């Protein structure tokens, strides 16, 4: 199991484009947390997380995203979750997190 994160900062729109491939669980969540926090240290900007190749997430991954969102909200920034697979959007819905994250392309 692995996780692969590719990031790209779009200066014109002041937005981070993040492609996450793989699985976010208790084993990989820390790496995701570190990588995303490092990006915010470098540049505070909205996040667009492309989930097309994210195959699995659970509460540990959702917890990481909530932590990042809290940091962003203080600066009136947000996270867009783009193209989540059905198993992933289901978790956002049952936890009600679909109301605090912007979800596109379901």
């Amino acid at each position, binding site marked *: 199991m692995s996780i692969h994160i590719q990031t790209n900062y779009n200066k014109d729109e002041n937005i981070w484009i993040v492609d996450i491939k793989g699985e976010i669980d*208790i084993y990989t969540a820390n790496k995701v947390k570190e990588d995303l926090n490092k990006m915010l240290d470098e540049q505070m900007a909205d996040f667009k997380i492309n989930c097309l190749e994210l195959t699995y997430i*659970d*509460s540990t991954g959702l*917890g990481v995203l909530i932590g990042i969102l809290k940091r962003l909200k203080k600066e009136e920034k947000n996270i867009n979750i783009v193209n989540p697979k059905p198993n992933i959007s289901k978790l956002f819905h*049952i*936890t009600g997190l679909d109301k605090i994250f912007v979800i596109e392309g379901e």
Partner: protein
Amino acid sequence: MGDHFSISVPSKPEYVNVVRLTASAIACRMGFNIEQIEDIKVAIAEACTNAIKHGIKNREENFKIQFLVDEEKLEIDVEDEGHGFSCNEIEEPDLENPKEGGLGIFIIKSLMDDVQINSNIGKGTSIKMIKYLGDDL
């Protein structure tokens, strides 16, 4: 009488995906559909995460998982001999004030058909969950 399949799992994060694959293989063999298999994978991973994060007093200890398979349902029991917690501490997600932790048990209860949690402080935790074959309840 159904079949009984049990494993003893090291209390380490890197084994949670092995448990997910095991559960997925058993559920697939039983004839659950893709959505149900995903539900089972997340639920069992949440129970393992709980055992690893809160359950185990000693990192060298393993925790136990039992799968009880019969014609109509899959029952999964995840048991650790760790700290235990007060079942009153389990809360619904508060969206006004979202927290990084505490969603696991709520997710298990949402995804599985029947869930029983027994936790005794100092003695450990057992999470018993059932998914029925056929259409979602």
